[in-house]
């Protein structure tokens, strides 16, 4: 019996963290979010894909690494901790899983192979399945897709888009098809991108099994939620580390502020809230990989609970930094914002908890 990450998983995780420390420090992140470092951002993306991030879950027979979701979860923690300014949850987790569970053999051969060769990258828009905002609506008929999808993730510069209708039918379109209009949204977290996509009678390749089964979209969303929870976990850990470090340096009343119980207790509360989230997220990923019966509920719990804990940590860690925490100079806000967007993506906590109640037939 062993509950935790393996040596391989930790090693890989540390490599991703080191890469981000070297290539993507806060100054770089700042430039990227100001839109002034597109080339550097592409280099970071390429570098991480070279490490294997693009094909973690793709089975070896299609050229991928054939690893499990727990492995990807470990990686996602590092991305959250280091504000990894790259597509991940959508392009490299949800898209391959949807194809693995929903595609026929030909679709798997075609897409998964291209994805592992990095000649194809997919943005994912499932918001209209989870809960459509602003009356967005997708309809798929006779291999044509029309309508509007909001908050399509990892879709900027993606060669393809994966979209779903309300019933969980999933299809893939080429981003450059005629009849597609793409608008960039400006979310508070600019380390990743979110698009609005309008479509009119665009040719779509329906993943064959998804016309009769929701298994593929549910699997894909469960995994996406676990990965986003892991991202917030990493981001929250970064915030606690920063707050503790700052509290040991900053002096007021001739004492470091970290010696005041008011400050110590805030840090202890953050640690006590976050620590069980490691176990929860890893356990959820382990269930995803090994016990499908428990996996849907565990994914809901992981995403909704980590979202709540991270929100509180975003607030408290900022407060420990005092006025400096509120400034762009200190940069605490980058993690605050990353957590804020993770929280709403693929279902806000209340939406997910209602889903968790239904999964249990309440």
């Amino acid at each position, binding site marked *: *019996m062993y509950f935790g990450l393996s040596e391989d998983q930790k090693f890989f995780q540390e490599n991703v963290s080191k890469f981000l420390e070297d290539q993507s420090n806060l100054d770089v992140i700042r430039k990227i979010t100001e839109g002034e470092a597109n080339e550097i951002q592409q280099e970071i993306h390429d570098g991480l894909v070279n490490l294997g991030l693009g094909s973690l879950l793709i089975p070896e027979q299609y050229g991928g690494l054939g690893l499990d979701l727990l492995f990807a979860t470990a990686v996602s923690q590092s991305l959250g901790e280091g504000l990894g300014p790259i597509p991940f949850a959508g392009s490299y987790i949800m898209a391959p899983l949807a194809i693995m569970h929903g595609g026929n053999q030909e679709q798997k051969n075609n897409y998964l192979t291209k994805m592992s060769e990095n000649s194809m990258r997919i943005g994912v828009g499932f918001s209209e399945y989870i809960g459509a905002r602003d009356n967005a609506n997708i309809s798929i008929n006779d291999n044509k897709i029309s309508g509007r999808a909001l908050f399509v993730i990892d879709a900027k510069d993606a060669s393809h888009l994966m979209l779903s209708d309300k019933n969980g039918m999933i299809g893939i379109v080429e981003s450059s098809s005629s009849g597609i209009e793409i608008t960039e949204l400006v979310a508070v977290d600019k380390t990743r991108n979110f698009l609005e996509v309008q479509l009119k009678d665009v040719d779509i390749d329906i993943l064959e099994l998804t016309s009769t089964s929701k298994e593929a979209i549910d699997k894909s969303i469960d995994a996406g939620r676990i990965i986003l929870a892991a991202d917030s976990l990493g981001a929250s850990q970064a915030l606690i580390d920063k707050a503790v470090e700052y*509290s040991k340096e900053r002096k007021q009343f001739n004492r470091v502020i970290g010696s005041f119980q008011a400050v110590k207790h805030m840090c202890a509360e953050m640690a006590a809230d976050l620590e069980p989230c490691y176990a929860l997220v890893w356990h959820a990923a382990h269930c995803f990989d090994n016990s499908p019966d428990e996996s849907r509920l565990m994914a809901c719990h992981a995403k909704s609970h980590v979202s709540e804990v991270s929100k509180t940590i975003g607030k408290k860690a900022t407060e420990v930094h005092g006025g400096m925490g509120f400034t762009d100079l200190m940069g605490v806000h980058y993690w605050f914002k990353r957590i804020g967007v993770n929280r709403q993506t693929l279902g806000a906590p209340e939406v997910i908890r209602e889903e968790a109640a239904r999964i249990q037939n309440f």
Partner: protein
Amino acid sequence: MDLNYGSQYEDFKIEVQDFCKEWHGINFSDAAKTPMSQNFESNGKTIKRSEWQSILIEKGYTARSVPKEYGGYGGESDIIKNRIIATEFSNAKIPSAMGGQGIDMLVPTLLELGTEEQKKQYIKPTLRGEMIWCQGYSEPNAGSDLASLQTKGELIDGNWVINGQKIWTSTAQFSQMMFCLVRTEPDAQKHAGISYILIPMDTPGLEIRPLVDMTLKPGFNEVFFTDVTVPESNIIGKRGEGWAVANATLGHERGALTDPNATMNRVNSLINRMKKETIDGKRLIDIPVYRDKLIAIQAKVTAFQSNSLRVLSSKINKGQDTKIAGMIQKLVGTELRHELEGFAVDIMGELGTLYEDSPNLRDGGSWQFLYMYYLGLIIGGGTSQIQKNIISERGLGMPREPKVQGN
């Protein structure tokens, strides 16, 4: 990640399951009079608490690693087997082994630090439930700052003569013995002046007064000492070493206070209650606000359960670092349980406030009782605030409060 206990434990699991089937539905003819004692469904099989304890020791389901010569099972300590026993007993709803301060705290301390004579004299009757112990640590002026305790012990003609007062003494009224912290070296520095002394509760000069807590159920006591005289040999460790001896046992207590599986059982009872209970004819489980809070709590408890698996894993796999995961258990476990019990009171509204033997009482009034009881546990055994000091100082490496002069 590997959550299987391994094939070598499969046989053991089946053995425990068979045992549980054999004893399903037993009840005690002399149920312990503690506030946490549970009523088990009876199938008519009745047994004395101490007989049950003896059976469990014989099977190795409790006192597993205590040597045979001291009345234990004499096996290897095995965390996974302990876990299997706890899980199967809980699933089968048969009573677990006796616990309490004697078995959970004193026995490990004696095994570690007691003399051969002390081990022979005390461990066996304690394990068998024939000798109940209470803990004499806290005093009116020594709570979170326990080491400032003032109950005095003087060595006169080969006896300790003890004067002073202890408080928060659970089960003193049922106990035969107390393990007690006493200041024996008044000139030594605070922590170095304390000794750990064993006191029979029927010693002349020892008086027990019940201390009624907010639950109004029998629980705590105050214990007064007026020239209470016990032999010099009733000390564990040397003079002035009592603080170290006590710290060996406090570690055992903090782990024991919060069982995540018991908390999950309460979540499931709450779900059942919400399916039955109605407001304006509508089931509580169907009301969105209640559903939302229920699932939020269920998620927290799930996280706490997973955390405890991780802590368990670190005990089996040497070198696995889960320092903070272990340190937060008392704080998180008690706060979470209090929140859960309080939420159950809320969803029942006025019905949730019914108590004792009121008409229309739900689940024996257990929600309101445990809501209050867990407030006591949040404070006892190191308050939440003390826990936060420990987490921030030992877990996060933050500086201690500057000392006030004279302390």
